[in-house]
């Protein structure tokens, strides 16, 4: 861990991992992507269903 001086106070700064390695939790990453990915997928699916009429 490194220390960084910020606006007059010492704050402990930890080094984050790069990708999913370095002790990160795969489940946390999958869950985070699901939170945003599922609504987006629903929106894209709904739009595609309507757009399909153009090619019928």
């Amino acid at each position: 861990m490194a220390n960084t001086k910020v606006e007059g106070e010492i704050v402990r700064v930890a080094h984050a991992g790069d990708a999913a390695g370095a002790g990160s939790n795969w489940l946390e990453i999958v869950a985070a992507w699901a939170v945003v990915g599922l609504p987006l997928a629903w929106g894209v699916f709904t739009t595609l269903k309507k757009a399909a009429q153009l090619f019928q």
Partner: protein
Amino acid sequence: MNPQKGWLRFLDRENTVAGPGYSRALVPPAALSIHLAIGQAYSLSVFNLPLSRLVGVTKSSPEDWPLTTTVWIFNVAFIVLGASAALFGKWLERVGPRRAMFVSALCFGGGFLVAAAGIAIHWIPLVILGYGVFGGIGLGLGYISPVSTLIKWFPDRPGMATGLAIMGFGGGAMIGAPLAQGLMEHFKTAQSAGVVETFVSMGLIYFVFMMFGVVTVRVPAADWKPAGFVPPATPRALVSDSPVTADEAFKTPQFWLLWAMLFLNVTAGIGILSQASPMIQEMFPGRINAGLAAAFVGLLSLFNLAGRFFWASLSDPLGRKRTYMVYFVLGALLYVSLPTTGRHGSVPLFVACAAVILSMYGGGFATIPAYLRDMFGVFQVGAIHGRILTAWSAAALVGPTLVTYVRKAQLDHGVPSAQAYSVSMYIMAGLLALGFLCDVAVRPVDPRHHARNPVPKAGAASA
């Protein structure tokens, strides 16, 4: 310690620095949660009809608001978006992304609630204050808040990272429109279209959804780099790591060239997007009805979304300047081709050309943060990005107005309605050619604009 102050410290920049084990793969979902929420603004038109029938319920009564009044909710929101992005950019750099995202969530979610009160008492100034002003501040702050953080987490792929987040803004309408329709259907009664309840629900839903981003977002430590990432020994000609402050960037020709490029690209894209439904119906009379036109608009939204990720990601290996050249050259050629596809009666070709144009409209938005980073460094890129978004507000006024007035002038001169958009399209092609010249003129920033001793903040220099 004051407990409230203690709780608010959670939002401080120094409490946002990533700890051990935090993966940068969590940053894009945090950014997307903000952009997917605020992108709802693009689907505000689903409320047009219900808002114009609040009193009459099944049809507009004389006491109801006309569409010319309700359209100001949207207009004010987008004007305030540009203004707040420009005004609060430096504040964002100072306080960090978490506090900015939190204020954005409060304003955007709270704006819905204030607007709901305005709808309940049928007083349009309160609706405009709620969704237009408060919501507009939430839009502007939310739009810029994750951008510089993403650039710092992904120095190896800044275009892809910002493209992913800004893609969310394009996708927000795809969620917002069916969500609003579903909620109104659920809440409607014989006496009400359920708009008030829908606004309240959406305010709460979006606030909670945006809080996911607030809690998840982190900034990297000052000396953090992705594992194995080695900055190129000889950077590309237009890529600089020398920092330029937001105030200094304002004085460079590069800022104004990029402003003009964004303005011209957005003007061209928004011109077709705003008139897409009547345009395709008039260009192919008897073949395209209102339902098919709505499907066409949906397809354009999808390409707008996909283009944000595709083109911005492509700009990492291709370079920003070349990517913008593709937007301008290919865009101009496609605009010139559109009237011909109309004359030949080829609906698939017309749809394909318009879809590619819209993908590059989205791509222009998504590539500009990385272009700014290349020009001015990461130091205050969020603030500079905020200021350049005023080009969007300006284009949102000019683009649709231009197409509408040129079409009217054509009709007044006896041009058949199927061909009334041709001149507009040639004008758009001309605007894109002008954008190409601006892009060609972009050169590296003069070293006299580089900041001598930029003050480091917690984490990586700034938000």
